[in-house]
């Protein structure tokens, strides 16, 4: 079975595309995402993210993206290189 890694993933939310429908918040199994006062998703529990990508797959507006640490746009990858 694949090892589950917690808290190494970046979540990028593009507010130009997001319509605040709440699907990503409803489907997150680890309470990573929450809604702010305008119902846009925020990431208060980023350390719990396990890269299941349910939010990314269920986003109808392509606004959310999970970046693994191997990804060149991840913050830790940028620091290391």
């Amino acid at each position, binding site marked *: 079975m694949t090892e589950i890694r917690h808290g190494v993933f970046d979540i990028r939310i593009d507010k130009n595309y997001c319509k605040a429908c709440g*699907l990503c918040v409803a489907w997150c199994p680890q309470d990573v995402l929450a809604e702010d006062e305008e119902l846009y998703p925020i990431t208060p529990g980023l350390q719990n993210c396990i890269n299941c990508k349910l939010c990314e*797959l*269920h*986003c109808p507006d392509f606004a959310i*993206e*999970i970046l*693994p640490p191997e990804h060149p746009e991840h913050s830790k990858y940028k620091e290391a290189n």
Partner: protein
Amino acid sequence: MTLQTSHILRDYMRPETLPTTWCAGCGLGIIMRSIVEAIHYQGLKKDDVAMVSGIGCTGRMSGYTDFNSIHTTHGRAPAFATGLKLARPDMQVITIMGDGDAMSIGGNHLISAMRRNMDITAIVVNNSIYGLTGGQSSPTTPMDSRTTTARHRTFERPMNLEVLARAGGAPFFARATVNHTASLTKLIERALNISGFALVEIISNCHVLYGKMNEQPVASGMIANMDKETMRSNPLLKKRASYPVRETATGKTYLRDSNSDAAQSSVAADTKDRGVIFENKGSVGFSRRYFSMLENIRAQKEHAGRPDD
């Protein structure tokens, strides 16, 4: 899979047209993502794919995706796709239609395309209502549901596309919902490889017009309800729908015990084909038969000494 999903999408979209004009939470975005992923995983080039769409909320999808696209008249997407497939037999033609588009005004075109077994991947998005024009009853509105033209609940029976596809002679019919995104992508991938008319019915949500009048006003609640609606055709989903949505609190492990009897039996049941309602193996599409017939006629004429008359 190292490649991220949104990076796939950006290559196949027209970025100047985004964000979409669909309502917040509409399942059409999920369907567009699945189609694009299926085309990407099949290794098709953008120039080898044509997307034909009719009128309705689904009609905008050909504008957002960066394939060869035709936005046709209401219900006539299979007719336009037939002509396109005969003119360019090398092209992978996908038609995307809504339920009113495909079954009401375009019913004859859909049946004729099935009868000819045209090499088209037809995707019918079923949201139970005419969404673009304001929520009128459509051929697939379920009984006892309220719409803007049926204020005292619908009393007509909904049309069953599965039976129509069987009678019309389509070799492949699959049904999925927007809740099951991974299986949706796999079904579309499989439909792209069928020689002949592959029909995929996707049950989508219209929480703005249909859900508001039927006690399902939130997108997430309506999509989660689809588990219960599809349980008749899939006993595994029926079992999963009985689980609570969130099993554990934050920070605890979310995996169930994989060695338990229930988990093992559900894994065993999972090897079945899911979503594919029927598939006729060995179907030969229209264009292959048609062009081989033309070859035969040409060969006979050359044999008779009268080439090209």
